[in-house]
């Protein structure tokens, strides 16, 4: 597989959330607006890039039996970095993403890529894989956030284009589940065609 395919597979063909349904918790929780969704996606991308790089660098040093705890420590380190940096430089975004920043550590996507890809491949392909998967996840979150924001509050990126309220249920919990359900169904259809 060449690097271009390696990069683009994360967007539609193997999109972590829309095809593999990994990392559903942050997806549902942080997509009440497009900006929040993108912020969460980028934070996850950073952790994914960092953990993929370090794991593939150390793949020969980590004994097979303790590899999962070792991966988790690597991931938790990068999550802590993101947590502190976001708290310092983008406090309002940090506030609205809340508990879901530290919870990147249990995001199945990150551990899944470390285990399934980075521990078996070269550093360069792992970086490309991490970037592709992370940006695929970010795109999905951005699109879902935009859909929910447009339907739910009649706005896009915080800019309101209707007066009054939208279909309120879409920025509340039920709308998250329903919108993601239909989005996965549509991507399934695209992939089959």
């Amino acid at each position, binding site marked *: 597989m060449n690097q271009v395919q390696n990069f683009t597979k994360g967007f539609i063909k193997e999109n972590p959330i829309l095809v593999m349904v990994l990392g559903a918790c942050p997806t549902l929780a942080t997509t009440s607006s497009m900006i929040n969704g993108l912020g969460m996606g980028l934070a996850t991308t950073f952790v994914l890039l960092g953990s993929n790089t370090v794991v593939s660098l150390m793949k020969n040093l980590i004994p097979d039996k303790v590899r999962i705890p070792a991966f988790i420590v690597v991931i938790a380190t990068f999550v802590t970095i993101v947590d502190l940096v976001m708290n310092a430089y983008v406090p309002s975004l940090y506030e609205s993403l809340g508990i879901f920043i530290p919870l990147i550590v249990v995001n199945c996507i990150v551990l899944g890529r470390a285990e399934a890809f980075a521990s078996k491949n070269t550093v360069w392909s792992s970086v490309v894989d991490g970037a592709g998967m992370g940006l695929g996840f970010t795109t999905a979150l951005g699109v879902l956030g935009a859909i929910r924001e447009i339907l739910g509050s009649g706005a896009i990126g915080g800019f309101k284009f209707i007066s009054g309220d939208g279909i309120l249920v879409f920025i509340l919990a039920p709308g998250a589940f329903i919108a*993601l*359900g239909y989005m996965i169904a549509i991507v399934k259809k695209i992939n089959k065609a």
Partner: protein
Amino acid sequence: MDFILLIISAILVNNIVLAQFLGVCPFLGVSNKVSTAIGMSGAVTFVMVLATMVTYLIYTYVLIPLGIGFMQTIAYILVIASLVQMVEIILKKISQPLYQALGIFLPLITTNCAVLGVAILVIKKDYNLVEGIVYGAATAIGFGLALVILAGIREQLELVDVPSGMKGAPIALVTAGILALAFMGFAGLV
């Protein structure tokens, strides 16, 4: 703090899955059959109460005195992972039937964000140890309730002709959405 209010709020009003989106992966993953759903809820209850207690003690008596509160995430995930491992070993030794019932679910719990989420929330909300444990137990019951209800609905869905694109995860998510809508009706309770 009124404990009854805390319990009702954690189970119904702020249901961990349907209102706070924690633990959605196992919620979708093991909700195919009611029996597995019950097993999973049992295991989660067990680990969540224990993890809340241990992480609270570690935060208050180790991380804070040493001034390394920022190590919270790393410390918690290590504690939860080793706790799950320990529970598995102990259960295997002392109670075979319980191990048979919960065994396969235990490794999955390490990556259940509800467990880590509750441990972090207890600190964020400034609960004391007793409140934390009650909150953890009530949250776990709420998780179990949502899981068992969804499993019941999905068992019935097996018999229905779902459009091919909607099969699997999409229909489960839409069902969960309608369930969340129903749970919103409890909002006035607290």
